[in-house]
């Protein structure tokens, strides 16, 4: 038995969430006194690939094949399953990214493996049982899922495992695979990247605005606050419904779930559906003019006051702090 981690790249680079997945896979390999193979697909340079060893890979398989330049769910799943078979791996780790969520279920079926998506902790392995804690009920609870199959697929929730250096040295091996035409029916036409911004699912700090901000014209201060913190911007559902902000920023039970280190909620009441998407944030700051807003009940820090006064002050205070360190 051994562990295999799929290291997804974005434009030839690995994101922090991938190093989290590699560190996590390393820890599972250690739990089972076995080795870890990392698989990369696409164009990634050798010095970037070497980082996978820094975070724990004993071996790096590099699949750089013209046909596999761009992510195609079906084809990538076939290739990863092939690599797993070749390596005798029975535990497959991926990041619970958008692509990872497409791959994990296909891999599960291919490998007759139980799939734990949205994993937030290392597996408990006692008495031959293998149990994973995962998010459930949109962040309102965790479920403990026992994987009863011999093969296992685990998709790790970003921001839930610390990047840990293991400083292994690993060979980079080119891995050749046969691809089949029927795996390439879906064709990528275009990638549209919003490069100027921090992406919300990856963000360590999120600045989020609600209906209390009155209108889209008032988002400049939210963006400025996000900029100086290196944060992503987010919003409540009515804000995206009204078209003040794009749907991709809507967090909550029916939007996306985030678990940043710091979530700053401005002019958001804290409805249960909103909290569902943000409750696993490490630290929550609430700015709201209503002392009775439910959000204060789940916040770590709060300021009762008018966002239009507080936010500009907060921007200056952070600028001052940044200048002083």
């Amino acid at each position, binding site marked *: 038995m051994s562990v295999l981690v799929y290291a997804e790249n*974005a434009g030839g680079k690995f994101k922090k969430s991938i190093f989290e997945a590699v560190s996590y896979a390393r820890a599972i390999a250690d739990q089972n006194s076995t080795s870890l193979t990392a698989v990369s697909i696409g164009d990634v340079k050798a010095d970037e690939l070497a980082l996978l060893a820094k975070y724990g890979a004993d071996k790096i398989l590099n699949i750089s094949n013209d046909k596999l330049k761009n992510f195609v*769910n*079906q084809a990538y*799943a076939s290739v990863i399953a092939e690599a797993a078979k070749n390596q005798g791996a029975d535990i497959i780790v991926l990041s619970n*990214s*958008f692509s990872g*969520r*497409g791959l994990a*279920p*296909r891999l*599960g079926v291919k490998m007759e493996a*139980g*799939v734990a*998506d949205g994993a937030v902790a290392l597996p408990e392995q006692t008495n031959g049982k293998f149990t994973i804690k995962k*998010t*459930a*009920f*949109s962040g*309102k*609870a*965790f*479920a*403990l899922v*026992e*994987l*009863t199959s011999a093969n296992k697929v685990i998709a790790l929730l970003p921001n839930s495992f610390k990047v840990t250096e293991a400083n292994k040295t690993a060979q980079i091996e080119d891995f050749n695979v046969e691809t089949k035409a*029927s795996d390439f*029916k*879906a064709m990528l*036409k*275009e*990638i*549209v*990247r919003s490069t100027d911004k*921090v992406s919300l699912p*990856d963000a360590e*700090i999120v600045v989020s605005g609600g209906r209390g901000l009155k209108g889209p014209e008032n988002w400049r201060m939210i963006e400025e606050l996000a900029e100086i913190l290196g944060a992503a911007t987010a919003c409540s559902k009515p804000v995206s419904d009204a078209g003040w902000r794009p*749907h*991709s920023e*809507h967090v909550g*039970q*029916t939007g996306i779930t985030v678990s940043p*280190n*710091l979530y700053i909620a401005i002019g958001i009441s804290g409805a*249960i*559906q909103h909290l*569902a998407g943000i409750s*696993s944030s490490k*630290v929550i*700051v609430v700015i709201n003019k209503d002392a009775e807003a439910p959000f204060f009940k789940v916040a*770590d*820090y*709060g*300021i009762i006051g008018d966002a239009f*006064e*507080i936010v500009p002050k*907060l921007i200056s*205070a*952070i600028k001052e*702090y940044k200048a002083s360190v």
Partner: protein
Amino acid sequence: MKMKILVCISNVPDTTTKITFTDNNTQFNTNGVQFILNPYDEIALSRAIELTEGGNGSVTVINVGESNTEATIRKALAIGADDAIRINAQPHDAWFVAFQIAQYVKENPFDLILTGRESIDYNGSKVAGMLGELLDIPSVSIIKKLAVDGETATVEREIEGGKEILTIPLPFIAGTAEGVAEPKIPNMRGIMSARTKPLKVIEPVAVKTFSEVIGYETPAPRGQVKLVPADDVAGLVELLHTAARVI
């Protein structure tokens, strides 16, 4: 082209539900919980209805569930699905659900299969991909836009920090997210006709399962909020730096 669309629907606790557990945190407490059509499935269904409007095809909804899900199935019929299938079984996990639906689709093919991006109870985003693999057709887990032109669809897929635009030949399967359609609300005529639309109940096939939910945990409660006076914003920054260590 007339399109036959299948929409997979799940029956989930209402979004306002306070989630609690019984039997030493091993059972989800359904006492007093209202169950609803999964909000993302509502988006899938609404788009399916738009795509088949004007006699341009038909929409079937399918659910793996016991008889207690029928109210939700009727809701889908009231919104505008033409007919419904219920596979009479407790939905053990995503694999079980996907296996049952795949079995049905192998005998009753569709041009397009839609699911929600995830069910709001287990948040797996798994059924679409598993179905795709079982049926050996493309799957896209989370789409924000879906257009169909003849035998080919164009979808927009969300990625971290952007989006991808893909073209895919029918048949394929996709999980819909916000943006794909405005959720439709049933009207009076829809509600009346839902009672008489066909709802077929079929029995499940036997299948080995690979996962068991053995317990639950609730998130650790946060301590009391620390309020910072509105005239001391710098104090908040100080706390975030020294106490919380997040900036």
